[in-house]
């Protein structure tokens, strides 16, 4: 079996947000919505203070809480572990937004154009998210199915993201998880995320 996952090296994330915009360009995500983003906070008191960066995306959990609560089957998990949303089935009830402990999902209210009152040729060509559905990161399945890395991985200038098959012990992601004390976010929720963090 294949279980796609990602390992992010927090030591190497410099908070440049190349991933955030790669994701936006790849998915034409609406204004104000980020499927991938970099959270920031400060730790310590001056002068022993510093900013820390936490790049986040959908965790593609092995036991996705979002899927559990979805009444229509719009959210499903592919055989390769990627959690996806079928916009045709989504009724916008937003139960999944409540259920996801990671805040990975956003309801689309239809106000997504980047230039107010104007839809660009790019948005016309690429934005396929209908009003009234819930949206999120899909590990760039369109790219992954072609053998490419997700857009955020492809663009990362410090190469702090690695994508691959967690079920293959020889894959780089598996090796990193095994060797580097990789941990997911909120493991206590018991959802078994496929996104792991090292360093930091």
């Amino acid at each position, binding site marked *: 079996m294949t279980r796609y996952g990602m390992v992010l090296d927090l030591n190497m994330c410099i908070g440049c947000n190349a991933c955030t915009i790669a994701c936006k360009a790849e998915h034409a995500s609406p204004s104000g919505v980020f499927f991938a983003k970099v959270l920031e906070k400060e730790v310590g008191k001056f002068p022993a203070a510093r900013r820390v*960066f936490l790049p986040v995306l959908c965790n593609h959990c092995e036991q996705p809480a979002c899927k559990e609560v979805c009444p229509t089957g719009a959210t499903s998990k592919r055989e390769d572990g990627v959690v996806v949303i079928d916009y045709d089935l989504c009724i916008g009830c937003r139960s999944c937004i409540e259920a996801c402990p990671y805040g990975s999902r956003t309801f689309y209210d239809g106000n997504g154009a980047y230039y107010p009152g*104007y839809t660009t040729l*790019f948005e016309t060509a690429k934005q396929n998210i209908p009003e009234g559905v819930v949206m999120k990161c899909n590990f760039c399945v369109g790219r992954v199915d072609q053998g490419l890395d997700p857009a955020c991985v492809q663009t990362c*200038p410090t190469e702090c993201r690695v994508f691959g098959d967690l079920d293959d012990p020889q894959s780089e992601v598996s090796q990193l998880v095994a060797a580097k004390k990789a941990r997911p976010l909120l493991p206590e929720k018991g959802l078994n995320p496929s996104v792991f963090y090292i360093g930091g």
Partner: protein
Amino acid sequence: MASPREDTWVHSVCDMCFAACGILAHRVDGVLVKIEGDPNCPASGGHLCAKGQAGLIGQYDPSRVTRPLRRANPRKGIGVDPKWEEISWETALYILTDKLTKVREKDPRGLVISSFDQIALSYFIRPVWAVAYGTPNADWVGYYCGNYLHASMYLTNGSFHSDFDLDYCNYAILLGNQQGFMAGLNATVMARKMADARRRGMRVVAVDPVGTNAAAKADEWVPIRPGTDGAFILSIIHVLLNELGCYDRDFLSCRTNGSYLVKEDGSYLKEGRDGKPLAWDQKSGMAVPFDENGISPALEGWFTAGGERCQPAFQALKEHVKAYTPEKAAPITTVSAATIRRIAKEFGEAARIGSTIVIDGKVLPYRPVAVNIYRGAGAHKHGTHTALAVQILNMIVGAYYVPGGHRGPNLVGPAGRWGPGVTAEGMITPPSAIGHGAKYYDFEEREPDDLGLHQLFPITTNRSPMYQLNLQDPSLFKLPYTPEMLIVCRRNLMMNNVNPELVAESLRKFPFIVSFSTHLDEVAEFADLVLPEQYYLERFDLFPNRPSHTMSPATGQFYWGLRQPVVETQGEARRWIDVLYEVAGRMGFLNDIYKLLNVSMGLKEPYKLDPEKRYSMDEIYDRWTKSLFGPERGIEWFKQNGYHKVPRAVEEKYPGPFIKPRFPVYFENMLRAKQSVKSVAARMGHDWDTSDYQPVPDWKPCPAYEDGKGAYDLYVVNFKIPFHSLSITTQNPWLNDLAEHNPYAYKILINADTAKGKGINDGEEIWVESEAGKVKGEAKLTECIHPQVVGIAGVFGSWAKGKPVAKGKGVHFNSLLPMSLERIDPVSTGVDSCIRVKVSRAA
């Protein structure tokens, strides 16, 4: 869904900052759907930053200017509607030709050109178009340019920039810059290389008043008081030289002028009046020419030769820095003496003086340390001194053009295509490919007639702030003509200079202003004619990867690429160079331009331009590429293939041990520059302060250091964030979205304790007021800033209606900057960018 008729990826080069990363643009049925880093480009290596990817959405900005516009309202002012009326290109060209002809007839020097479009400036405007037209005033570039820095680099590393070798460096001090953290030159490749270096354990020390992205990832953040970096560096030099005795004697003796004997007046002891400088040979006990074979030059001691008491230049430096003990530097910098000593020791030990490394079969000195400077540490009065001190620190440990150390980009070209020059005194000068205009050893003593006053500021690369001062107050230097016309090409003079009211005053002096712009920006409010400029995704530009600026040595390659249109041009936009060349044709000086282009581009037969013929820019590019790389490398090849690449040999990666010229640790030429400047100033009727022309650098307080009177108790500084560049990107809605969601980008950073002392809470509106202006914004209380400092990021705070995304977003730092001779670096003319402010609640 129907399958697309067209689905293609096009090679081009990004222009969202100056790094010029190779991109692949994905176009489907004529619509741009994605931009990615071009894996074939050595700089991007397939990666691309947020700005580069966001360039896509800017292509479709409905606020673009798409037709030529003429002002109907004669009143010009900030926020005043020019009442634009659309005109045809033919009308616009007629007006442009008519105005340019009249100005040229009166006095061609009355034409001023302002641009920061490096590709066009360096090849098509400054060396040829402006020269053929007859104006020396084609160099009004940005005040964000590191002009204090470039001259210091020309003088020391013979190159235009500061860089260091992340392949081998083990210890890097980033002094007020974020090299490797998606800022500055070659940002993408440096971010990749920095990450690799940190993975293998390189230590990074970020010295900065602001806890930047670089400071966030550094092993150590050293918050320093703004404008005191020079004291910090000179103190480290003192500790290494005088406390630890840690310096590279071989490098200083043989590769620098450290062994040159200097007399008590500071000048070289020479063999005869114009002979070679002399060094003291310890074997023979005599003063001999510095480059005589087999000598053992002294670095220390006092000697008598030719009846003169003299000492090696190195000793003069070593004695000079004794004034900078850590105990003296600590209260200046707010960095403790113990920290300065520890960093000096760590730096000295990490330099591994005496060690060697074998690379590609060549035994090379191995000095894996570097201190790197860019704008932050030097954008102060006396910034030249700071930049030179930084270079001395790199040199005293021998970390200069060797594995792990400091380097300038591309001092030598592939297979000897270019290389450094050497003065009669054995000192390095820039290769003509990089700095043909840098004449820092022989000075021209005449009254300057350009707005930049070149002869009054001989150790400079550009003198843009003097344009501003000469316009602001024409009585100051009394040039023999009046500026009549300004052409602005892709540059926002209002946003990226000093206080906009001061700039507005200068712009009002021009009877006629033409602005080539993608938007009705802040400059348009003062323009008479606005001409629609092509967006970079619509443009041709050959070789944006320039050896001087953006051809990163970190890639291990030399590389040349092509920016080409990836989508159709919006409306009637054109490229400004093409328009000016068309006007030159109408005015009848295109043949002069062609003659000059043959020289400036170094065109060889059979590719030389025939002055009697007419060529499209494509044809000129085609001749240029074939002349450089052979008949099979025409413009079509570049369109299809993107990059012409040449791997760097070890001698081209680490030229230090393979070249002859020496690097200066002692700037004897400054004494001659001083005399020249004095003489030029006297001719101009000025009693001029030349005290900054010194052979060894000092730290001197910039005005802000001593201005902290009364309520003006804080400094304000500007810093970079990784997803915006200057005002260029502010109208981009994706990057605006990022900035709106970022905790710092649009805010005013103030230390949490400092804020509490002033009763300011997080998120409150505050005023920041300097002697020059005031700005309002939201306070961001943070632990990541020096307690005496207020931080404002980027160049935000646009007000032009024609930039609706950028309008009203963030805070305009430059509004706080005054402009006077007191507030520039007297050597480089760099604008002093730190100033005292008072901060108060706006409510």
